[in-house]
């Protein structure tokens, strides 16, 4: 029952903590794990605060509050008959669940993916040279993370895929190593940020 703002604030805090961890590591300063965990415990709301939050959520809008005034103002926004014609603005289009929206870049990416799959099937491991693989992996990693940050979460590989558990472990290990992260740091970040 937390708002998107709360969770993203939480993620940012966790991210900042992680940044601190890695910069501390580069400077070879040893920080005891307990000392690093302390701020997260201090920020934890008390059980009473949590109970009050849940109560406030289930009550709905209370009269004479800021929320009540805002909703009231929105409801009263209907203009009188004599006012000039209102304009219609499309704010957002939300596609049907599961609908595939193809863009030119998506089609190009699908073409490259198909080419790689075919080369793999033919045993041609040099179809993409390391620098090209690095560019693709780096860009996709950033794009996926940016989408996830704004709430566009989707499974990282499609349902019908031949990616094996070993492929995933090799790739994850290599990605962690590339940014000098240990598996336990990933675990800590996941538990702090609910990711």
């Amino acid at each position: 029952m937390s708002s998107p703002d709360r969770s993203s604030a939480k993620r940012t805090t966790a991210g900042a903590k992680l940044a601190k961890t890695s910069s501390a590591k580069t400077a070879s300063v040893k920080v005891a794990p307990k000392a690093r965990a302390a701020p997260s415990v201090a920020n934890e709301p008390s059980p009473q605060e949590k109970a009050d939050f849940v109560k406030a959520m289930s009550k709905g809008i209370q009269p004479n509050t800021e929320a009540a005034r805002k909703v009231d103002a929105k409801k009263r926004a209907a203009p009188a008959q004599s006012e000039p014609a209102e304009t219609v603005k499309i704010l957002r289009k939300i596609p049907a669940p599961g609908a595939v929206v193809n863009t030119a870049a998506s089609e190009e990416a699908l073409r490259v993916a198909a080419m790689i799959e075919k080369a793999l099937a033919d045993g041609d491991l040099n179809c993409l040279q390391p620098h090209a693989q690095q560019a693709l992996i780096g860009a996709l990693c950033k794009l996926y993370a940016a989408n996830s940050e704004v709430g566009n979460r989707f499974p990282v590989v499609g349902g019908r895929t031949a990616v094996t558990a070993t492929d995933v472990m090799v790739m994850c290990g290599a990605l962690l190593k590339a940014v000098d992260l240990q598996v336990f740091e990933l675990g800590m970040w996941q538990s702090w940020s609910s990711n």
Partner: protein
Amino acid sequence: MAEQFVGKASEFKDGERQIIQIGKREIGVFRHEGEFYAYSNICLHQGGPACEGLTIANVEERLRDDKTSMGLFFSEKDMNFVCPWHGYEYDMKTGEHISDRSQKLRKYEVLTKGDDVYVVA
């Protein structure tokens, strides 16, 4: 109340939604099983964007003749949409809150004239 043109039916695929603004009002326009529905985008709970969350089939309990339960199933005919803030669930066809039918979102009439879609607001 005036008829406001919101788009072409042929460009509005089944299952799609548009959040539109008419004056200062925000309205969610849904196309579900060929029909159009339009509701105020202000959630009855705390004013969240009621029309922008998940759409999900209604959950119903099926009973045998002797009233023993066969379990919970997703309805094959009733669809709901869920406010993304705290999960208030509304009936797609009426805008009613599914567990308290006396509460409902403001519903706007939707007219189709040929391929043109209008919301009366």
